[in-house]
């Protein structure tokens, strides 16, 4: 059961003088959302099914990720180091996407989500709801990482520029939804059909502070017939939404 200890996967080898490729890679700037995928997951060929067709220098890349001695060159000429490094990164992104969608990976990520490690929704009406990383695609090279907010059911650009280079494929398009399917108690409780507060101890949001913004000019709403009247509020509506405007008291952020 040691694999289920969230601290084991991220700090087991940090004491060594020569950190493994995976730990080195996960400690790079902007890579702090990544999990260190355990070696035994990568060493199981079943988990890597189909990836050899996507990555050109698959064997060399895999050896780099696992810190193995390079095997005998099978192709002549040998690819240069930079190409292998790029392929190792590509391969790791796809392995990572698969791993975080496993039970064990989801467990680690849920733990980090509860600690708010992936940031908060930039939308004010979401009351600082914690977000999860997500890709819009499962393939690499398509789009960068986004952040998914389960309260407004929407995706956002990360506010910090260190993440603008992160490929969304590291997480894939299903990951946050798999996480909430696996741990439904982590879904924010703004809904009538989630009448009870989540049972989990550290729920990173307050149920009462979801609101829909109401624009006003000198205190008056814009008439519905005007070209600038609100037309998008329905898209922020959730069951249990009580206000069409934010409360004016100190209770909202």
């Amino acid at each position: 059961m040691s694999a289920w200890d969230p601290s084991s996967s991220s700090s087991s080898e940090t004491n060594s003088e020569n950190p493994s490729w995976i730990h080195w890679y996960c400690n790079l700037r902007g890579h702090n959302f990544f999990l260190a995928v355990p070696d035994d997951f990568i060493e199981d060929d079943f988990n890597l099914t189909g990836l050899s067709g996507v990555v050109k220098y698959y064997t060399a890349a895999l050896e780099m990720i696992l810190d193995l001695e390079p095997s005998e060159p099978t192709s002549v000429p040998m690819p240069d180091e930079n190409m292998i490094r790029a392929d190792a990164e590509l391969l790791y992104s796809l392995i990572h996407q698969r791993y975080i969608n496993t039970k064990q990976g989801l467990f680690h990520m849920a733990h980090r989500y509860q600690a708010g490690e992936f940031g908060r929704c930039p939308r004010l009406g979401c009351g600082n709801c914690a977000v999860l990383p997500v890709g819009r695609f499962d393939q690499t090279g398509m789009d960068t990482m986004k952040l998914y907010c389960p309260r407004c059911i929407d995706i956002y650009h990360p506010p910090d520029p260190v993440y603008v280079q992160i490929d969304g494929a590291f997480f894939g398009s299903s990951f946050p939804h798999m996480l909430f399917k696996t741990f439904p108690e982590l879904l924010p409780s703004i809904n009538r059909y989630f009448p009870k507060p989540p049972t989990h101890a550290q729920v990173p949001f307050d149920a009462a502070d979801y609101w829909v913004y109401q624009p006003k000019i000198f205190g008056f709403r814009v008439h519905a017939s005007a070209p600038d009247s609100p037309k998008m509020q329905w898209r922020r509506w959730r069951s249990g939404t009580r206000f069409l405007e934010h409360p004016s008291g100190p209770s909202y952020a």
Partner: protein
Amino acid sequence: MSVPSSSSSASSTAYWIEWHSRLRGHEFFCEIDEDYILDRFNLTGLNLDVPHYAAAYDLINDCLEDTLDDATRVEVDRSARLLYGLIHARFILTQRGLAKMYEKYRLGHFGRCPRVLCGGQETLPVGLTDTPGMKSVKLFCPRCEDVYTPPARRHAAIDGAFFGTTFPHLLLHTMPELVPRKAAGSGFEGVPGGARGTPLGAGMGAGADTLSRYVPKIFGFRVHHASREHHLQDKVAAALGVQR
């Protein structure tokens, strides 16, 4: 939330307003026209909200006699910034102020909407209250009509009341051609938001509905709880008579 208190002396630059506009995080402010400040009629009532009003007013206009003790001087510094912010909130609602802020908007001084499906829409600063000292400045997106926390931390120290609750909405009201097209089928939300994104597929689904709204999917299948929420939203849209 508090008024920034870098109490460095205001006399380091020739003009107070110039110095003020160069302060960290102040790039959302436009420069108030001198005529506007000099017309006392525009400032009616502000003396009730600003301590050391007369001295603060003189400081803004670079004609404060430097005979104050240090403690008072610090207070007057703070009051001048408060006064300037409150005048700013009024000025940007005038025709001249709206034009100045429109120019800043056009040049992208206020940043972009963080919502991916807004495709990099430019935002406008807004306050959640007109009372100073309550809430920092936020960003209003004319496309999704929602308010967001500015991404840069330096803006957390800028008072939202210096922009006010009305400004972005009055700007769009007076210049309705700035309102992004929102009806379904206009295709505007097909604009990829990501740096490298182009095709819409996998995570997004197809059709006008999914283009305007993020659709959570697990390995290609819609997520039940999200579908239920979307169904409710559709009913709300119908009830509000919104064309989608």
